[in-house]
């Protein structure tokens, strides 16, 4: 990245592990993990189902406490960062409030943090435009498809222009076309706002297209197997990650690199479950 080295990292995870205590015994969800996400950097987490991607993201968001280790967000404790609203978050489920309209849902964070209603209205219009739901502002979530709901959730996460975006498989429910469109949008948004993004996904091409670095995780207990740097980021500014990129050679090379990292050297085909290689 071109940021000065002195700039404080967006996310700094040091020696973090997480044990869930359940009735049927302890579940070691994460083994000690170290990960740094620079300001403005786009990092994807990829790995088979149950490897602790959501858990890691929840620790960064201070929705759960690590069993050991520290999590810092922009140099603050994750708790301080949450209280200061340093991040926007989109969950694996859209999590919209069913009694609020689309516009009301996007407005929620702005309302809670006391944004004036005039500024709020124009921001909501802008956001809905961006996710292509301008015509659905007055609909209720249960009148939308799953993909549309997820787009509302993304608009909501972006509402306060956070410096850090945490996204847990936000495009999982989208069809391929909308998905690619949203990916291009996300690249544009993150380039425009300079936001760092931690992005959980099951799709290798998606991770490759979006990321500066792809963190490949392995399950039980979850740990980082490899961090694959995307040459794409160095070669071109993120804004230039256009549709053409998807057809370039370097793209397929990176897809292969991530696949191999995922399969951990074992012959491809025996399959890390839950990871799409499309």
């Amino acid at each position: 990245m071109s940021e000065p080295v002195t700039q404080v990292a967006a996310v700094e995870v040091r020696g973090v592990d997480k044990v869930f205590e359940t009735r049927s015994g302890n579940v070691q969800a994460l083994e000690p993990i170290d990960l740094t996400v620079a300001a403005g950097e786009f990092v994807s987490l990829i790995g088979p189902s149950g490897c602790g991607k959501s858990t890691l993201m929840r620790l960064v968001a201070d929705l759960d406490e690590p069993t050991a280790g520290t999590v810092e967000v922009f140099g603050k404790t994750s708790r301080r960062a949450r209280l200061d609203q340093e991040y926007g978050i989109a969950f694996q489920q859209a999590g919209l409030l069913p009694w609020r309209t689309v516009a009301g849902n996007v407005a929620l964070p702005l309302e809670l943090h006391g944004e004036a209603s005039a500024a709020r209205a124009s921001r909501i219009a802008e956001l809905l435009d961006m996710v292509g739901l301008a015509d659905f502002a007055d609909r209720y979530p249960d009148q939308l498809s799953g993909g549309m709901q997820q787009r509302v959730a993304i608009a909501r996460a972006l509402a306060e222009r956070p410096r850090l975006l945490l996204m847990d498989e936000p495009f999982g429910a989208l069809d391929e076309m909308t998905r690619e469109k949203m990916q291009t949008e996300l690249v544009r948004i993150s380039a425009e706002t300079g936001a760092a993004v931690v992005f959980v996904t099951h799709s290798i091409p998606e991770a490759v297209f979006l990321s500066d670095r792809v963190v490949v995780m392995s399950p039980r207990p979850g740990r980082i197997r490899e961090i694959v740097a995307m040459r794409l980021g160095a070669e071109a500014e993120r804004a230039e990650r256009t549709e053409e990129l998807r057809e370039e050679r370097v793209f397929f090379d990176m897809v292969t690199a991530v696949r191999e990292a995922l399969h951990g050297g074992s012959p491809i085909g025996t399959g890390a479950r839950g990871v799409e290689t499309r």
Partner: protein
Amino acid sequence: MSAGAVTAATAPGRPKGMGPRTEATLRIVAPVAVGLIVLGIWQFLVSVVGVSDYLLPSPVSIIEELIASWDSIVQATLITGTNALIGLVLGSILGILLAAVAARWRPIDRMSAPVVAMLAVVPIVALAPVLNSMFGADSQFGRQAIATLASFVPVFLNTLRGFRQTVPVHRDLMRAYAASSGQVLRTLTLPTARPFILTGIRIASSLAVISALVAEYFGGPRGGLGSLISTSAASSQYARAWAYVVASIALGLVFYLATLGLERLLQRHTPQARRRP
């Protein structure tokens, strides 16, 4: 009277192949038709078959009685209705507040649970003679207290249940937004609980009328529907007793429909497909 029946806020599904208009019409027409048929048979039994008009007053004589003593019936309905309304409002407020407290602090929940369970299983009108003599023969307070207690139970139980319906992803969201507990209550907990609270109030509305009315059977000041039903029956004025019974039914219906209307009004913006298990 055991108000423990906690009914979920589910609307009954509409039968397939029936438009909403047809369904609404049918919902009104069907009970009216049934009522007319019953009245017809009743009148037939009295005037044609010859069941004694003294034992079973005919619908016509009841209507005549209704018209004849209209003023006193309206008076009585107002007295009982006021008691029931005061009980319903107080009981609902108490129920919602206490449920909020119990949902917030576990120990209070633990302490209140057995008391509420007791209130739910003991017929609350059983307290009527005690309360009536406690507050003196010329006070409506005992009846209002009974109606309050009767309303409290279903509102409390339903509200408490409603407060527990928030889903994890919404709670996470509120936490991520660093929302204050007041904000969480206003934007998440109350809207989630709203259909449950309204269902509780609707159940309570009928109980409030019934208990205010029945409480009058056990002494206290005269003049309410309950006491007039018992005096008329005791003095063998059956047609008049029936006229008061009709007024009681009307009163109960008014309460029920009013709370149903409130529910509809407040849930207007809630899409029908709020699916609940």
